[in-house]
Each structure stands twice: as C-alpha cells, then as structure tokens.
C-alpha cells in the first residue's frame, strides 16, 4: 500500500515533469509518464475511497439527536458516510443513535487503550470534527486493525445495550436461550443481551463502509492493474476480517449472570441471563489481540475468485477468526514524517525512574531525551465544615511534574 501512496504522490511530480520537460530528450520516456499518470489517477481513486473506511467514526461527534420523522434530512447532515451507509441510515433511523454512541465509545476506548503509547489514537480532528486522513491508518497496519475491530465491536455493543434497555422498538431481549428451561438446574428467564441483533447491525453498517472499494475497482478494472486490484481487494478483506474479529471478541465475552430466589435466597430457583461486560473489558480484550496480531498477506489462487489471507511466516500459529491481522508493519512513530500526515504528539506521564513502563520516557521519546516542566497548581485543601452550612477551604500550592519529549 505504501507504494500506492507513493505513486499517487508522484502524480504531481510526474505532471510537473511532463509539462516542463516537453523537450525532445524526454520524448522517448513520454509514454511511460502517460501510462503512469493514467494508472496513478486510478490508484488515487482507490486510495480516496479506502480513506473512507473509517470516516464514519466522525458520527460520534455529530451533535443533534436524530429526528425519526425526517430520516432524509437527518442523515444527509452527517459527515463521512458512504452511499450504502447513507441508505442504511435512512432505513434505520431509530438505530442511528446507538450507532453514534458506538462511534463515540470506540473513539474513547481507543484513546484510553493508547494514551500511554507513541501513537495515542488521535482519530478525529477536534477543529473540523472529521476523521483525520492519517495515511498509516489506511494501510492495514496493526493500529488500523485495532481501530476497525474496536469500532465494529462498539457499534454492536451499543446497539445491544440499547435493545436491552428498550430504546429501540425493533429489538428486545434475546429469549432464544429460554428453551434450556427445565433441562438444567437453572432457568433462563431473564433478559439476555441480544448480541445477535447488535452484531447484525454492526455487520450491516460498519462493513458497508468497505464495499465501495470493490465497486471502484469494478468500474475501472483493467488487466494492467491486477496487482493493485489484489492489494485493494486484500485491504478490503483484511478490514472486513478485523471488523469481524472485533465482533467475535464481543460475542465471546458474554457472561452468564444469575439470581437465586429460592427459600431464603437459596438457589433452588434461579433466573439467569447472558449479559455483556463493561465496554472496558472488551477494549482490553481487543487490545490484547492487538499485541498478538498476526502479520499476513493476501494471495489469490488460480481459478478461485476470492483471495485468501495467509500468514506471512508459516512458522507461527495461524490466526483465528477472533485474531487481528495486518499487512503493513507500523512506522515506529518516532520521527514526524512529512509524507505521512501523522498526528502523534508525545508526552510522557511516568517519571523517568520507572523504567519498565510502556510510557517511560526513554521509550516514548525514542531516546531523544525529554524535559521536565514543573507546574504549580492551586488546589483546595484543609477543608472544614462550619455550622451551618458552609465548607471553608484553604488553597494550597501543589507541584506537578510533567515530562515532555524533546
């Protein structure tokens, strides 16, 4: 994918060359430039459409509530939706609130999980409220895998939660487990979280951010573009895999909760239901998958339409459906790279003596060194209650040390 971007960056330079060097020496090379221009314009299209695969996350910051009576106007005001997602919005306006809180939760959880690392999950530009077109996020890196998984899990999670709360009319509790009644000691009668519905919605909405790539490719597919087609296809497959992995993690984290109500609280009679844990748990689980993510490549076998995802190094354990996969190794996030519009800033939180932490200064600052800034903050202290009814405090000065990378 890096080459893709590189090529698209090259368009400008190649154009410039074409115009300025209309001299005869360059004539023999001209067909090469023309070819390059043609293909790179095409690639640019693909790149632009791929950038959209996460831009729906900006939904989280969409301010107003959705007006259920006017799905058309409410949906059109939203930024970053693909055509298919727009269609989904119009049809399912009642679910869009849950989707939006899902986007918000995904962003917040990502920032929590990464706040101590070099890349601190800055996804949304606070000024424009749009998803930052951070190139590395769209290159099938590990970080991109995490964002895809957490966002699809978050949408499924929030939809499920809202179903159980009765906010949406179309879904309710999952009573399918109640068939177990009588077989075991316990009886399912409670309101189990309706994960299946949530996962279905997530599949429909989140995955449809991906589909566009294929249509772009279908419109312009030429034989000379086979490798890039494969890579666009591959990116698409990998994003879908990671979306699915996020939902799998969610499904596996369902826990059974029970309440006993026999005589004096004995467990003769029991009501049980499946419930989802706190979203932090799911964030942790996906972060764990992020650490053990597998590097893969996409291969296309002769005669078979669908490409396959295979491990890059076959010595290692094959990834399961719930494991994250990536194709491109991440940058080390140390140097600001002008070619990539990156968005990381580095502030360490742990004083330098705590050596083994992930946010320890020498690691976070890539060995460049750091500076200590001392802030003096006024705080209320020695508060006392006076009769009646007042609390008087003194103000104390507190020294706070912060460490910033150079």
């Amino acid at each position: 994918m890096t080459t893709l971007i590189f090529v698209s960056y090259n368009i400008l330079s190649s154009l410039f060359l074409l115009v300025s060097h209309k001299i005869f020496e360059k004539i023999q090379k001209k067909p090469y430039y023309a070819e390059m221009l043609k293909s790179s314009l095409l690639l640019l299209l693909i790149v632009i459409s791929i950038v959209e695969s996460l831009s729906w996350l900006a939904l989280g910051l969409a301010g107003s509530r959705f007006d259920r009576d006017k799905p058309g106007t409410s949906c059109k005001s939203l930024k970053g939706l693909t055509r298919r997602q727009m269609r989904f919005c119009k049809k399912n306006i009642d679910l869009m609130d849950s989707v939006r809180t899902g986007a918000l939760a995904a962003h917040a959880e990502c920032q929590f999980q990464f706040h101590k690392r070099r890349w601190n999950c800055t996804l949304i530009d606070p000024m424009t409220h749009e998803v930052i077109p951070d190139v590395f996020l769209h290159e099938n890196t590990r970080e991109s895998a995490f964002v895809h998984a957490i966002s699809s899990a978050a949408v499924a999670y929030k939809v499920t939660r809202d179903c159980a709360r009765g906010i949406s009319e179309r879904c309710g509790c999952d009573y399918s487990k109640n068939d177990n009644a009588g077989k075991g000691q316990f009886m399912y009668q409670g309101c189990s979280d309706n994960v299946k519905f949530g996962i279905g919605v997530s599949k429909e909405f989140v995955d449809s951010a991906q589909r566009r790539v294929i249509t772009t490719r279908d419109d312009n597919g030429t034989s000379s573009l086979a490798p890039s087609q494969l890579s666009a296809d591959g990116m698409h497959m990998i994003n879908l895999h990671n979306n699915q992995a996020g939902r799998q993690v969610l499904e596996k984290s369902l826990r059974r909760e029970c309440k006993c109500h026999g005589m004096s609280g004995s467990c003769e009679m029991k009501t049980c239901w499946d419930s989802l844990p706190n979203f932090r748990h799911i964030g942790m689980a996906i972060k764990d998958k992020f650490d053990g993510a597998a590097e893969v490549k996409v291969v296309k076998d002769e005669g078979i339409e669908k490409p396959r995802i295979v491990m890059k190094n076959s010595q290692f354990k094959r990834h399961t459906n719930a494991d994250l996969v990536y194709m491109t190794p991440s940058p080390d996030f140390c140097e600001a790279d002008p070619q990539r519009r990156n968005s990381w800033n580095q502030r360490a939180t742990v004083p330098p003596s705590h050596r083994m932490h992930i946010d320890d200064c020498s690691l976070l600052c890539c060995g460049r060194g750091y500076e200590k800034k001392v802030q003096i903050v006024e705080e209320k202290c020695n508060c006392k209650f006076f009769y009646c009814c007042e609390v008087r405090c003194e103000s104390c000065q507190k020294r706070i040390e912060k460490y910033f990378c150079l």
Partner: protein
Amino acid sequence: MNFLIFQIFLFVLLVYAQHTPLSGTQSSPQVPYNWLTLAFVGSNDYLPRPHYQSSDRDHFKELCRRLDGLNPNQQAMCAENPFSIPFVARGVREAIRECENKFKFERWNCSSRDEVTETRHGKFQDILGKTLRSANKEAAFLSAIMAASIVHSITKGCNTGNLTECGCDSKPGMQRYQADSDSAMSRDQFSWGGCSDNVPYGIRYARRFLDEWESQQFDETKNVAHLVRRHNNFVGREAIAQNIRRQCRCHGVSGSCEFKTCWLQMQKFSQVSDLLKKRYDHFAVQVTRKANKRLRRKERTERKIPLRGNEMAYVHRSPSYCEKNLTAGILGTAGRECIHNSYSSESCDLLCCGRGYNTRLEIRQTQCECKFVWCCEVKCKTCTEEVAVHTCK
C-alpha cells in the same frame, strides 16, 4: 605423569617464546581491560605443581601474561598468587549465571553483543564489556555482583583449603556477624570452633583485585566512572559482609546446649545476588558527573548525605534496551520469549516495548500419570501437550 605433562608444557612454551618477539610479550593495547574474560579460564593450568620451585614462578608469570584483559595490577596479583585465579574465574562464571537468572525477564537480560578480537594469545571476547564500562545502573549491578563473587569464591577457596595463602578465620570474633535466631535468645557461653569463613581475606583480595586500579585511574584521569565502579564494588562486598551468620552446634549431655561451638558462615551466593537485585531495583542512586574526592548525589537536596553501602551508584540513565543497537552492544528484545497475561516486566506488552508478539505452537512432551509399581519402579506415560510460545516482534 604430571612431570611428563609439565615437560610437554615447557616445550610448547619454548616454541611459543621463540615465535613471539620479545617486545610483544606485553599485553596488547587494542584490547580493553575486562577481567570478566577470566570466565573462559580453566583451572587446570593454575594447579600447584607437586614440587614447587622458583623456576615455576616464571612459568606462571607467562601464563598470567596471556590473560588479556587483566590490567597491570591484576597481572601482578596473578603472578604473585596464581592459584587464586581459577577461583576468581569460577566466581565470574557463577556471577554471570546468577545475573542471567535474575534478569531473565527484563529488557536487559544480562547479555550483550560481545566483540571478539584476535590477539596473540587467541581470541579475546569482551564479555559484557560495553555495559561494564558504561556507568549506568546495569553496570552498577555488574560491578557489585562481580565484586561479591570474588569475595565469595576466594573465601570458599580458603575454607576448603585449596588456596595456600589463607585458611579458616582464626579470629572470627573480629568479624561483623548476625547470630542465628534461636541462639540469639540465650546469651550463653560458647566457644569458636570449626572452620569460620575467612571473609576478611576475601574482601582484602577483592579490594586489591578491583579497587586499587580504579583508585589509581581516578587519580590520573579524574573520571567519575572509576569512583562509581569503586563504590559499586564496595556495595558488592558489603552484601556479603553484612550477612555473615553465626552457626552453632550444641554438644552437652544428650545434645543439651551446655557446650556450644560456633562458627561463621556466608550466605549462599544466590541469596547474595537476590539482595543485590533488590539494591538495583530500589536503591540505585544517580550521582553527579563530576567529583573531586567522593561521589555526590545528583538530587540537589540530598547532596550532603553520603552514599551508603547498600546504595548502588550510577551516572547515566540506562537506554530502553528495546531496539537493537550494535554499536552500543544492545541486542534488543526482538525474538525474546514473553509471557502473556502477566503484569510484570516479563509481560509481552512491556518486554516487547509495544511492538507486539508472534505466537508459535510447540509440542512438548512431559511425563504424566506416574505410578509406583511394586517393587521398585515408577512408571509414567508420556503426554504431549501443545504450548503457545510468544516471542517479541
């Protein structure tokens, strides 16, 4: 038989002496002083000969000269007391083993990329040299544990009678020691007996072997690193000296404690290294880059407090040891095995520095369902289990 070997050896020596020019017999200047190379020295060469003669002195002198990496003071000590060298070597090996053990699950795992130089006496491997000369916390630990290992193994050598220079401690009452718990209650009479560990000799030896050179170098160059190393050697020696225990045995009528004989004993070396690891973790003090006579703490408010014997000193902050850096001798953590679902330093997140890990399935065979079969056999089945091994990217 011994005599024959001696003859052969002399012959080899003769041939060797003919092939090496006289001026080249001094230690070669390219090789840095690193006495840890003694780890490769076997003990056979330095055994005392059956009939020790004055001509043997030259023979040992030559042997000592071959030990590249020893500084002139250490060379002199070697020539003077060659039989002690195998004990120092054994100490070094033990210390390296302990160090690797204690740092198994940390980013710096007591290893480095060692440069190998070709010298006239064979290959010289600069064991842990870059770390040892770097004046950071890891260097502090190394200095301390190496000093402790010399004290320990020389003292053991005295105790077992393998060193002719020293024996058991004849005045154990002069040493600092802790009485063991049960005899602390009864402040009764006892007599020293048995063989007390001669720690004072070991300490004197280690001080001469390590500190004299550092003191001379500091006087010449005023480089604080020498002072730091001298202090950390002291910390290592103290770790042994502070933990000598009095062991006693009662031999009154039917085992009563009317008559008691006591002797002094050092702690096991693994306990000493535990203690030093704790000092490394919690009691390491950063000192200033310049010093006139003694080390000063870097923290301005604590400048007046002198460094104690349980505080390791270091000058420079350590690197993260995450990425491979061959010029600094750092191997990096890529490929290291880490433990999933752990919250300490061996966890995959911390050990791999956030780069993530690969998982490999390994089939391990273990013995299981062992049963005792009369008489007298234990029969086991072999079970195969798949273990997921995580290694850092």
